């Protein structure tokens, strides 16, 4: 008998646990989601503890998206016109989190204000029991305006607020700090920038148990390998004990995958690409699963079909853990 000793790494560090969804202080969520806590590399249950499985979030936009892939328009249908219905359907399709994007507050897409933003968030909170991630419209001034208003109006719900970047982190962190929320710290595909932003946030006394980090996802075929390697490096650093890399990671795999030509073009593409319905889901699943293998704790998706495929994959990957 050949002796084979299974090599097991002893990791001195661990990823922090972050909980979304208010279970105290007035929160109305019927379920909460805790991610992180890993004491080994993704899904290597033989080596160390993996207390929480990664969570699947579905993106919901507060206005009918004019530029989304025809495949997404077809699959969601009229639900795209009502964020509350859309969110409820997403939960029925398997979403464990709803990622609500307040796009209509963007100066170019309606420029709606804080009152409207709060009303939309309230409607989605009423429609679903799962925790919410709330993204601003992606324009600096309006992000600050609406996210602060939403944060104040939803005290206790323990939302994840995004994006919290180097240019606006003070405002977003202050809003989260005062109202019991979590922030999503995004930096552009770089280990040191990610660490630096975590340090800045930590300096403002927001507990790191309330920080998710977004390493900025590149889609399959569009820079995915850069993100994947940065994520592997961040997770290795976290396990080696570097305190400022120990945040759970969130990746917007759906947005990136469906933005590309492979997720949008229905005609005038080579036959080898396959049909859009299959191709879009294939692109999203491959992007998201690669991120999960690299250490993602939350992936934000767009297509219900991808949610099903990834839920099955995670059932398998986390069994016995």
């Amino acid at each position, binding site marked *: 008998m050949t002796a084979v*000793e299974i090599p097991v790494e002893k990791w001195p560090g661990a990823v922090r646990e972050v909980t979304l969804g208010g279970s105290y202080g007035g929160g109305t969520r019927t379920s909460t989601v805790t991610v992180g806590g890993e004491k080994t590399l993704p899904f290597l249950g033989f080596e160390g503890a993996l207390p929480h499985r990664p969570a699947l979030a579905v993106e919901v936009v507060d206005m009918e998206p004019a530029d989304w892939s025809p495949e997404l328009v077809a699959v969601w249908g009229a639900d795209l016109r009502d964020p509350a219905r859309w969110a409820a359907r997403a939960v029925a399709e398997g979403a464990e989190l709803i990622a609500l994007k307040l796009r209509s507050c963007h100066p170019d897409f309606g420029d709606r204000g804080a009152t409207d933003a709060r009303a939309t968030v309230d409607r989605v909170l009423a429609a679903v029991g799962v925790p919410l991630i709330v993204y601003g419209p992606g324009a600096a001034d309006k992000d600050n305006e609406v996210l602060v208003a939403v944060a104040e109006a939803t005290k206790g719900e323990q939302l994840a607020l995004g994006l919290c970047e180097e240019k606006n982190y003070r405002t977003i962190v202050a809003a989260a700090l005062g109202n019991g929320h979590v922030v999503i710290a995004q930096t552009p595909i770089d280990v040191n920038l990610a660490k630096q932003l975590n340090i800045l946030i930590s300096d403002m006394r927001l507990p790191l148990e309330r920080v998710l980090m977004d390493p900025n996802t590149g889609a399959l075929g569009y820079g995915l390998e850069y993100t994947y390697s940065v994520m592997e490096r961040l997770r290795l650093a976290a396990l080696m004990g570097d305190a400022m890399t120990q945040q759970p990671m969130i990746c917007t795999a759906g947005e990136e995958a469906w933005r590309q030509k492979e997720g949008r073009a229905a005609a005038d593409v080579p036959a*080898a690409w*396959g049909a859009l319905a299959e191709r879009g889901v294939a692109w999203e699943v491959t992007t998201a699963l690669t991120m999960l293998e690299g250490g993602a704790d939350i992936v934000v998706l767009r297509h219900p079909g991808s949610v099903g495929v990834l839920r099955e994959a995670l059932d398998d990957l986390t069994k016995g853990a």
Partner: protein
Amino acid sequence: MALTGLAIYKLLPKTNCKECGFPTCLAFAMKLAQKGAELDKCPYVSDEARTALDAASAPPIKLVAIGAGERAFEIGNEVVLFRHEKTFYHQPGLVVRVKSDDPQLAETAARVAGYEVERVGMKLRLDGLAVEHAGGDAAAYAAAVAAARAAAPGLPLVLMSGDAAAIAAALSGGAAAEKPLVHAAAGSAWQAMAEVAAKYGCPLAVRAEAGDLAGLAELSAKVRGAGVEDIVLDPGTTGLAGDLAAFTQLRRLALKKGARALGFPIFALATAPTWQAELARATQAVVKYAGVVVVDHLEPAAVYALLTLRQNIYTDPQKPIQMEPKLYEIGSAGPASPLLITTNFSLTYFSVAGEVESAGVPAWLLVADSDGQSVLTAWAAGKFDAEKIARTVKDSGIESRISHKKLVIPGHVAGLSGEVEEELPGWQIMVGPRDAVDIPNYLKNVWSA
């Protein structure tokens, strides 16, 4: 396992004769350890030392070739667990499985051989066909393999059967010349299979019960003892979690523990009842250590995604693929054709060039030297600023080839338009779309000379 400089020094003559070009034997040994010198430079090295050094310098994961001729592929010879530590060298072969009694066998073989998709200037293809023995005797199996070879000449094969007589029949029927991978030596029949593989000089997969890496190592050693040099390891499969654990353990054992019997590429049977579940399994196999990935579904969308993933993961992280910075003509561009500028990251170039081409509007595409970075990354790093854009335009000689003075810059650097206008007096700077996919609409509906 690689030897240290000191360990190598002990094997050298220690005469400091300097004939190798180094001042001392120790200096030569240190250089050998860093792979900066060849052992042949020492005229006095003993055979014994040579054998020891050759064994020690053998790669921890053997390079194995599957197939013969133009479409043969090599797997193995990997040196790291994570691609950022160096790079992954030999991308896994993507193989589609077909049953030997499938009436569509020949048609599937031809489709596998003919599948091709272009991405960033490279043609991506499937690597082989696995013919699984299903029903029928050895002669029927050999006939199926012959039919596959006739339908897909030169396409590497994986011969899958537990019956050594069936494999022997297929190999003696002509397949042996194409060096197919034989799958698999397993259980009590291992010896018969090893004898067939050794006789025909074909690579052989060994398979143990799922999760039994000790059994796999034992079998690998036995097969090697029976004269098979090129081995592929199939640790069995229990799904995603089991595969990830087994593949990770195999890679670690080979690289960190120097386990010679497990120092071979990995065979991943990623098949599943639906193409979606199969895609998930194959995705994991590509990113986590497989040398051969077998799927059942020839769904083009999934194949395209997997080939793209493989290209991404096996790109050398230290060398992003770059384009030569210069003026490119898309279609037959003339004096009135639009002029666009972008950076020399290959993906950026091919995305933009592809969309300009599909717009059907001939154009000049000026590619600036951004050290291979994309528009946004280059802009953030100061490698694609107004000065660089202006200098690229002036140095390109484009002014003498067009009758207008309009330059389209990427939408992502819209903020630079004022500065570029200052740097290029007399030019009109137009802001193009942010994403390449919107270029056709822009060229057809917005741009005018």
